[in-house]
């Protein structure tokens, strides 16, 4: 087979549908990555326009440009859009586009999930846009402090748009994060050990793990606040045993790691692009990996530094002040490693490098002011002033936007296959750089002069007029610069010349393919034995196109790839991906019905949405099944591998593991919230307790454990080709009994509107019940599979997945019942 035939055959298998119809059915990571990036930049522009409106309002004192009602929506939406609809999706888009290419494989672990995440993002984001167009956008500030955001002080639908829309969008973050983890650990080119992974993969892996840990607290907080607003469960109402500080803890438990979730991928871009611009390799690879890991963990120990003025005792503040200073150290390690890399090589000031220089200048200032605000006494003065606004823009614009622009200009030739022709980019950079510093530098000062953030106007006597005017002028220069970047990118895509391969002479695998990239990435998969495979062997792209790697021969209509051992990169299993389908967009639309029902308080839509999602999810997994065994396959290079469904650790198992990790974090936060209210909230103990029943507790725990055990028995049975239905039947019964025990707890508990205690108990019970239903559905699916002849020892991987969930439910189910019943004991 020659190169052209192979390309045609592979492209026929992997390509999306032609034209715009392909957007709705594509599951290809290159397409979806681009769609994610374009959409996120669309939101960036909207967020930017809102920023312009803010600066227009503040340009002069006593401004009559917008009243407080509109202005409050504008700044709330500016923050919300930039954080949730621009920064995180931009990372997801970049990771989705780049990871399989830089890891030397053909797609991410769960192609359909990529598409589902994208559509959840689009639909959730649209909800917020609609709210804005109707003038009923959220207006309590992007961190939604309760009680201001509760039903008493924000009675309109505005806040609900935020809570529900953002939770909808976060589905995409969680989905992408779980997928990125599995893809990096299990879907790499053979031979790529952990030590040989491109540094960007480490950044993406750690960021994804952080999303899985960082987002659940906010999701939980949003659920609790929405339930409080809709049904009056008093989680955050102090008169009824709630506490508004619980919201702040949950929000910042998310909010601080969020800053690093945004910064780390950008730092990953710098670590990838900067060495190429310096014609050398990064120094201290291992040190940087350790620094990233340290940064990730430390960033979870900082959240209270957003709460230094809430009256927490000084020792509590001091812990977080100390941790907030320490987190600067791993950042410094990276910074000096980058500068050292520049000294090691010969830096060339191409456009991406120019943006990296902008990043250095800006981010270092943001880091230094960050250390300042970590000092408790100084924080007491500048908290909630323009100083913080300036600081956070130095960190986020400096630490994210500049590196992302560097990344855009670095990978633009990869996406388009073209060379930059017009030289708008350099000019745009200087407009952005100067505009940014003019806008935000003096803002530090006006903060020290007492200008609070979020004020809609000020008087001439305040003495802030000139600084604000200068700041507003700077912001318009900045936006002209950004508009020029946009124009530059559009002109580039439309009108430039074709490039030769690998224009930057990079050493990573993303450049070892045609540009623009073909739908299948690599005609055959490389065997990697260094961190810079392309630098070691410049002929690699040609060898791969000629089919000299793994899986060089297209078979049937299979989208084939390999799964490898996480540590060593040894090939482990043969994977066939699902092809184009409209199921993801359909499922996210049905998910949208669920959220829309909650938003509009048309609660009859909610169960329709839930049943719809469950039905489509079952269809989703059912599609992957086969009725005959697929034997071990030759994958090239003399390697023969079993299909992934003949293993206990299939992609689905790994995906479940990471999803469970996020789920467990959410559950942990719920338990934390319970303990927090119990110990700290003023309105405790509650007057009425739950009446514990040791029979219900015993039966429920036994049922949960029995389910897990029965599922393990079923797993062993299918492996040894024995009958599985008896064990599955027992598991099903166990799950039903466990669910019944949760339901009884819900039934017998005191009314949840009376006290935060009962309200929390209600959420705990519902969490247990939800998981019982989940296990019932999963076990039911397995039973249907067995009946229809879809299982055998070589088609057994679904048993392992369900068993994993069974184990999880055994643990959390026992905890739910234990906490519920023991909390009723009067000590």
């Amino acid at each position, binding site marked *: 087979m020659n190169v052209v035939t192979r390309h045609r055959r592979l492209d026929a298998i992997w390509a999306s549908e032609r034209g715009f119809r392909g957007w709705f059915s594509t599951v290809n990571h290159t397409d979806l990555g681009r769609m994610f990036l374009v959409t996120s930049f669309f939101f960036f522009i909207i967020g930017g326009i809102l920023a312009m409106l803010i600066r227009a309002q503040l340009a002069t004192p006593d401004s009559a440009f917008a009243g407080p009602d509109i202005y409050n929506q504008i700044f709330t939406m500016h923050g919300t859009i930039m954080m949730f609809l621009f920064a995180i999706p931009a990372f997801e888009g970049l990771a989705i586009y780049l990871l399989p290419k830089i890891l030397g494989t053909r797609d991410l672990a769960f192609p359909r999930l990529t598409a589902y995440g994208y559509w959840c993002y689009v639909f959730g984001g649209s909800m917020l846009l609609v709210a804005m167009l109707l003038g009923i956008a959220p207006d309590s500030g992007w961190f939604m402090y309760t009680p201001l955001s509760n039903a008493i002080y924000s009675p309109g639908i505005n806040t609900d748009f935020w809570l529900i829309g953002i939770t909808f969008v976060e589905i995409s973050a969680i989905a992408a994060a779980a997928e990125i983890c599995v893809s990096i650990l299990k879907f790499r080119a053979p031979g790529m050990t952990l030590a040989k992974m491109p540094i960007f993969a480490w950044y993406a892996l750690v960021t994804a793990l952080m999303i899985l840990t960082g987002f659940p607290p906010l999701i939980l907080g949003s659920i609790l606040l929405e339930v409080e607003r809709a049904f009056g469960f008093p989680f955050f109402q102090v008169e009824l045993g709630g506490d508004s500080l619980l919201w702040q803890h949950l929000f910042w438990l998310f909010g601080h790691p969020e800053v690093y979730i945004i910064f780390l991928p950008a730092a990953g871009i710098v670590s990838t692009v900067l060495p190429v611009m310096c014609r050398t390799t990064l120094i201290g690879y291992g040190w940087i990996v350790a620094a990233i890991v340290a940064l990730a963990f430390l960033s979870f120990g900082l959240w209270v530094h957003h709460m230094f003025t809430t009256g927490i005792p000084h020792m509590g503040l001091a812990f977080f002040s100390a941790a907030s200073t320490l987190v600067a150290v791993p950042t410094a390690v990276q*910074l000096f490693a980058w500068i050292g890399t520049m000294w090691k090589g010969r830096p060339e000031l191409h456009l991406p490098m120019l943006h990296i220089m902008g990043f250095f200048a800006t981010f270092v200032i943001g880091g230094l002011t960050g250390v300042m605000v970590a000092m408790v006494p100084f924080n007491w*003065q500048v*908290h909630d002033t323009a100083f913080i606004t300036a600081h956070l823009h130095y960190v986020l614009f400096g630490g994210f936007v500049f590196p992302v622009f560097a990344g855009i200009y670095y990978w633009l030739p990869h996406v388009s296959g073209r060379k930059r022709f017009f030289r708008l980019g350099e000019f745009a950079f200087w407009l952005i750089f100067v505009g940014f510093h003019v806008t935000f530098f003096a803002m530090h000062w006006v903060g020290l002069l*007492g200008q609070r953030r979020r004020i809609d106007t000020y008087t001439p006597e305040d003495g802030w007029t000139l600084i604000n005017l200068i700041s507003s002028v700077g912001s318009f220069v900045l936006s002209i610069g950004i508009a020029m970047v946009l124009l530059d990118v559009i002109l580039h895509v439309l009108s430039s010349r074709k490039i030769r391969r690998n224009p930057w002479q990079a050493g990573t695998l993303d450049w070892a393919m045609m540009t623009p990239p073909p739908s299948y990435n690599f005609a055959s998969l490389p065997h990697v034995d260094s961190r810079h495979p392309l630098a070691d062997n410049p002929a690699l792209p040609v060898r791969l196109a000629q089919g000299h790697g793994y899986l060089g021969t297209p078979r049937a209509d299979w989208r084939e790839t390999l799964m490898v051992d996480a540590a060593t990169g040894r090939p482990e299993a043969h994977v066939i991906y699902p092809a184009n389908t409209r199921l993801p967009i359909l499922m996210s639309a049905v998910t949208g019905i669920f959220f829309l029902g909650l938003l509009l308080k048309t609660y009859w839509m909610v169960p329709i949405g839930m049943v719809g999602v469950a039905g489509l999810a079952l269809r989703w997994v059912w599609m992957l099944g086969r009725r005959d065994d697929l034997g071990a396959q030759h994958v090239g290079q003399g390697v023969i591998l079993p299909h992934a469904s003949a293993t206990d650790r299939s992609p689905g198992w790994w995906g479940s593991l990471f999803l469970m990790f996020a789920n467990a974090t959410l559950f942990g936060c719920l338990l934390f919230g319970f303990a927090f209210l119990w110990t700290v909230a003023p309105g405790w103990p509650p007057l009425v307790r739950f009446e514990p029943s040791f029979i219900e507790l015993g039966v429920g725990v036994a049922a949960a454990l029995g389910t897990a055990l029965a599922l393990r028995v079923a797993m062993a049975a299918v492996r040894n080709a024995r009958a599985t239905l008896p064990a599955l039947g027992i598991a099903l019964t166990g799950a039903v009994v466990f669910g019944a025990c949760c339901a009884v707890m819900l039934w017998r508990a005191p009314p949840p509107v009376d006290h935060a205690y009962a309200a929390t108990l209600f959420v705990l019970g519902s969490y247990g019940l939800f998981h019982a239903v989940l296990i019932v559905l999963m076990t039911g699916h397995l039973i249907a599979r067995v009946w229809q002849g879809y299982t055998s020892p070589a088609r057994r991987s679904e048993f392992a997945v369900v068993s994993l969930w069974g184990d999880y439910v055994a643990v959390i189910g026992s905890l739910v019942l234990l906490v519920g019943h023991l909390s009723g004991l009067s000590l």
Partner: protein
Amino acid sequence: MAPRGVILATTLLALNGCDGATSTLQTAGPAARVIADLWWAMLVGAVLIFMLVMALVVLAFVRRSPDVAADERGQVRVWIIALGLAFPMVVLAVLLGFGLVIGERLLPRDDVTVVQVSAQGQRWVWTFSYADAPGRVTEDILHIPAGQPVDVSITTADVIHSFWVPRLAGKLDAIPGRSNVLRIEADAPGDYQGLSAEFSGENYADFGFTVRAHDAAGWADFIAGETE
């Protein structure tokens, strides 16, 4: 970076003819003064560090010969261990020490001469009451004696607010169901502008108050109910 800011801001102050009524740097009380000193010290340190980093970046471009001598081990020793780890850890340890000591000093401690007042925030009015004058309530003006530490017990009747008198001390929040105590002190008699510094909705921008510090005689008059 920062010297430019200092010059700029000073010029602006002059141009505006402003008295810095809400400036954290025109201090009029011990707490604000300590914090302003901390700020100036940190500013100097930050400028030096920033210049060091930028100099290293610029030098990378202008240096003619590449680092042929240094191997990976040497590079790691210089850039990562010395500059990346040791340097920030020393600086940060010192700074953190200062921060904690100052924080301790600003805490409200038991003290017989302390004056007790209460502040309650409510959208959009502050109500003040006085332990020394039971039943006396003022709105949007807090009366205190000058030259004497005052403990303000801060509460809210609705959403979260924050009590902040920039020239006297840092801010402290009014949290539902809680009472937080902030120590303030004014050096001299006079009016000091106070601000509510936690976003509270529609009239947030105008939500402020005045702290009126009296001399000994004025305070005695106030307690006696002779001042309006």
